């Protein structure tokens, strides 16, 4: 029996519903126990982890010396890989090829393989097109050659996916779903946020802009440290609901917003699993769960949902922690009309992300009216939520007249990097602590 760490599951909600009320909403805080040993079925060290670094080598990487910075960043990331972990490096143009190991397998990290990888990476030159689906397919194939359960990739690009059809990229993403996680980075401003967001959302990773290639090495190192801290692969959030209830949504809301509603996989009677990815000891995330139940009589109490953290183990699924979302019907309006402050705060932050994305989209369409309205709403919400980072990014795109009411004017000139930074970081939330 493997010794999996436990999870603490805290549920924050107002369980009281008015007579006839059906909608139950709760913030579920999930925290992995901070155990010192290395669980997850693997022996101590890195053998349970596998990393593939995918480097864009298209012709445009020549400009601004991006390819040189990408080489440095790749080497910095390789240096952080734990001894014993598996790794490989892939170069991508309109096709993809293994840079190290050259035979398309994975190497075990040690002094010798790191040096060899360094030599191979220094040979990388920029020349060719961009077909990101091909890159992902090769990474997928390389991961197949190793037994590690914690599989993670870093994908770097500087351009749009020009040399294959969107359907080809979509098919490649679907192939990789569940097989490995992928953090995406766009360098410069000629890549498309929506493209990389599709990859990172499906593959449970992050997406961000690195406007200046000089920042790549530090960013790669940090991403790799984050990946190396993960010890527990493929955790599922299992939501059980009563027979007549419907799960309206399941969203991760901290540290960033990720809507998991459509990712449900049925698991047994009245339950569905949502992917929660890999976890580091002590890591904590918040989820917003909405359930619609059939109303019961005033005074009755119902379990609206049971949220469990489940890990697949050879001996069957193991439940690592659980929390209960309840519904109690009352005729006391003072109870039923109260809104849980954490539910309210995260609802506002989810609206903030949507307002930013809609506003920027409208702005690019030339619909200034909608853009002004949505970005104005975003300014007001960021102000309310105390999300200073997002407020700062918004102020580079609009002139704020009054942040409380969200009165703004679109700036005539906006740097592409500022707009893309706002777009990619719109889903980052401010953690709402239990008050």
């Amino acid at each position, binding site marked *: 029996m493997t010794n999996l760490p436990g999870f603490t599951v805290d549920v924050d909600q107002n369980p009281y519903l008015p007579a006839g009320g059906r909608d139950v909403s709760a913030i579920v805080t999930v925290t992995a126990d901070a155990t010192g040993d290395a669980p997850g079925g693997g022996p101590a060290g890195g053998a349970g982890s596998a990393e593939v670094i995918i480097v864009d080598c298209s012709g445009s990487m020549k400009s601004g010396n991006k390819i040189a910075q990408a080489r440095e960043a790749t080497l910095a990331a390789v240096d952080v890989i734990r001894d014993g972990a598996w790794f490989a490096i892939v170069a991508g143009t309109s096709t993809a090829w293994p840079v190290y190991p050259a035979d398309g397998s994975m190497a075990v990290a040690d002094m010798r393989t790191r040096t060899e990888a360094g030599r191979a990476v220094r040979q990388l030159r920029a020349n060719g097109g961009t077909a990101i689906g091909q890159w992902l397919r090769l990474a997928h194939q390389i991961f197949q050659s190793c037994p590690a359960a914690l599989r993670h990739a870093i994908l770097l690009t500087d351009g749009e996916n020009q040399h294959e059809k969107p359907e080809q990229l979509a098919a490649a993403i679907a192939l990789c779903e569940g097989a490995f996680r992928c953090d995406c980075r766009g360098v410069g401003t000629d890549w498309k946020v929506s493209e990389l967001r599709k990859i990172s959302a499906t593959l449970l990773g992050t997406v961000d802009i690195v406007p200046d290639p000089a920042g790549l090495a530090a960013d790669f190192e940090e991403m790799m440290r984050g990946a190396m801290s993960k010890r527990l692969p493929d955790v599922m959030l299992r939501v059980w609901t*009563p027979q007549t*209830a419907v799960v309206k949504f399941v969203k991760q809301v901290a540290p960033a917003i990720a809507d998991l509603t459509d990712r449900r996989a049925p698991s047994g009677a009245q339950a569905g699993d949502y992917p929660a990815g890999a976890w580091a000891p002590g890591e904590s995330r918040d989820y917003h769960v909405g359930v619609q139940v059939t109303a*019961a009589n005033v005074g009755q*109490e119902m*379990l609206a949902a049971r949220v469990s953290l489940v890990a697949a183990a050879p001996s069957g699924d193991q439940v690592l922690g659980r929390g209960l979302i309840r519904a109690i019907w009352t005729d006391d309006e003072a109870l039923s009309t109260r809104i849980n402050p954490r539910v309210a705060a995260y609802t506002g932050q989810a609206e903030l992300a949507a307002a930013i994305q*809609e506003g920027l989209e409208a702005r690019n369409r030339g*619909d200034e009216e909608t853009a002004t309205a949505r970005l104005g709403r975003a300014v007001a919400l960021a102000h309310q939520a105390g999300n200073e980072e997002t407020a700062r990014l918004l102020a580079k795109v609009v002139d704020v007249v009054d942040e409380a009411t969200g009165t703004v004017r679109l700036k005539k000139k906006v740097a592409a990097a500022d707009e893309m930074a706002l777009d990619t970081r719109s889903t980052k939330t401010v953690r709402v602590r239990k008050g």
Partner: protein
Amino acid sequence: MATCPAGHDSAGDDFCDVCGMRIGAPPAAGAGEACPRCGAVRAGQFCEACGYDFAAASSALPPPEPPSATSSSVAPPPPASAAAWTAVVTADRAYYDRVRAAGGPDAAAISFPAYCPQRRFRLSGTEVRVGRRSASRGIDPEIDLTGPPADPGVSRLHAVLIANPDGTWSIVDLGSENGTQVNGSEIPRGEAVPLRDGDRIHLGGWTAITITRGG
């Protein structure tokens, strides 16, 4: 094995494994009776086989009818509230400025409201009328923009939202005085224009209606 108030067998002894009800609570009224529609054994307020609502049937009130029951429509009811649509009414400064700039005959007489709380209307039934209530003319629209604040540019019976069989909605301008815009373009009067999630309808001097799904 515990038994819940609705009569289910449950392995869990705090909440029922089937219906989620707290175990140990008093039994639900009428548990065990047969559903008058399909004959299944009752296990709560709703029949778990066909969804029949026991509570509605046993109350003295007539069973609930959809809001526009007079049309005795044969169209299926809109799908369950998983896809519920909401109309959110706000005052839109940018639209107001455009109306003023366009300079219609009475444009200068309309002022932008100093305070306009957001109003939300859940779309239900088969038709939802948009206008301003008039007792004398017997107009009582579901989305009543009488205010305050009142937008004098909105006609008494301005437009109607119509439920499509697939659960989405369309808008028809009913020959209003000042017209209706969807996402910034004027729509032809008397023609159904399909609406999508997030579409913005503008009418009158400053009124904006945002249509959202699942709001």
